[in-house]
């Protein structure tokens, strides 16, 4: 069975004012797999991620050329709404960013915006997503507590649950474990491995070891270009490009 292509990026270039952040990117994201994106700082990894849920639109200086198709439809087409897109493509940011509300309200923020008011359904969403994020047992007795009181690792898992509560199709994670302790990192990685059965996951990480642990496929970005992409095992053992080899062996980074 041919694996389905969830997102198809065709010759994507992104500019911020006069600065070009992405150059002619072309790649396909396979559904229900984890794609890891590695590369040194300022290689355009975060920019690429933010293009997929049109978060770059928030910056009035940004401009995108090329096409980004999800399930065959161009997400930048004028008829497409960015807001509707973000219901299907969720994002977890690098720094845990809980909203200044209770744990419960954080998770139900998105669903309530979509019009879900039934308390029973919301309760169900909260339990299910917090469980998927491996956080339920730790917070189930204090859902009304201010989310800011949680530890960093817990906050990040909360952010994951919050994103899952939107019932997206794609989950984007931007260096989600930077600054987290190894145990929290492990928990999040475990969650991702389970979640890929249901979602398409794209994970940006500057920790190559994490990519080799978790990702099915890996893409290597360098200075706004896609240098190489393939199965993780191949990228890390027999990369085709010399630059990839230099990076994964730690010659630069």
């Amino acid at each position, binding site marked *: 069975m041919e694996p389905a292509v969830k997102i198809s990026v065709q010759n994507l270039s992104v500019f911020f004012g006069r600065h070009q952040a992405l150059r002619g990117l072309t790649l396909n994201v396979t559904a229900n797999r984890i794609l890891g994106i590695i590369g040194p700082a300022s290689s355009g990894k975060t920019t690429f991620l933010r293009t997929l849920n049109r978060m770059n639109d928030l910056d009035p200086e940004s401009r995108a050329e090329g096409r980004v198709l999800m399930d065959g439809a161009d997400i930048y087409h004028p008829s497409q709404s960015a807001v509707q897109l973000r219901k299907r493509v969720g994002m977890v940011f690098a720094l845990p960013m809980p909203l200044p509300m209770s744990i419960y309200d954080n998770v139900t*923020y998105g669903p309530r915006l979509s019009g879900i008011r039934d308390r029973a359904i919301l309760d169900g969403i909260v339990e299910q997503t917090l469980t998927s994020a491996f956080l339920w047992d730790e917070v189930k007795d204090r859902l009304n507590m201010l989310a800011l009181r949680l530890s960093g690792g817990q906050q990040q898992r909360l952010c994951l649950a919050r994103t899952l509560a939107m019932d997206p199709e794609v989950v984007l994670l931007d260096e989600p474990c930077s600054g987290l302790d190894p145990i929290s990192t492990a928990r999040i990685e475990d969650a991702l491995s389970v979640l890929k059965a249901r979602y398409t996951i794209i994970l940006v990480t500057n920790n190559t070891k994490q990519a080799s642990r978790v990702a099915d496929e890996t893409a290597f970005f360098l200075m706004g270009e896609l240098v190489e992409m393939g199965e993780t095992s191949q990228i890390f053992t027999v990369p085709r490009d010399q630059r990839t080899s230099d990076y994964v062996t730690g010659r630069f980074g």
Partner: protein
Amino acid sequence: MRIPPKITQAMAVILLGAATLFTVIVLVLIIAFVLKRGVPEISWEFLSTKPKEMGKAGGILPTVIGTVLLPLLAILIALPMGVGTAVYLSEYTRENRITKIIRFGTDCLAGIPSIIFGLFGYIFFVTMLGMGWSMLSGGLTLAIMILPTIIRTSEEAIRAVPQAYREVSCSLAATNWETVYKVVLPNALPGIMTGVMLGIGRSIGETAAVIFTAGSSLMMPNSLNDSVRTMSVHFYLLAREGISNEKAYATAAVLVFAVLFVNLTAYWMMNRFIAKRSR
């Protein structure tokens, strides 16, 4: 012969300190003087009965009502307009020609003397729109007067909300408007409230603009169309017409307490705002 720097420093400190002390003493003395003469005259009866003989005897109840209602009306009008302006300037646009015009208008409005507001209120609300000397005229005029303050403090409060919250809200598929009323405004509320208290404080002390728009009737107001006298106006008329010095001092003392209360509340809110942000 050069004076050694340590000596010039000592001289400077003494001079500056003396100037500061003088300033503080003068300002405190003024308040103390008013309170000393006025507080003995204040009683519950004073606050709750109507004046007799144009204020020579009796209490100041109608003016208390006026001093409460007029700023309230002004805030009811100025708050939505001010917060709306602040929201537009920070959430819906970036700096361009239009925002420069809006800011220019706001800054200019802030500097206009109150007598001009009185003139304008008189010619526009009282005369041209036919509202007469009324709470409505007074409230509308005061609203325009405090608008710049509300805009300024609201914008500051809104800009202080961390950008991260907006990004998160956006990524959870909220529209700009939903982000504003679900995340930004609730978090900016303490700062906005500070502006509200400042506006109320200004309205309480305002005399020139109020006399020419709300009039100076000593009767209890029954509707928005009735003229009403505020404590500031009452105080001014008592003093100027020489009606009663004791009652004037008493009214002044009540006014001082009112301003004190409003400012302390504003200060307390501001502190809560700062504390909440740094948590």
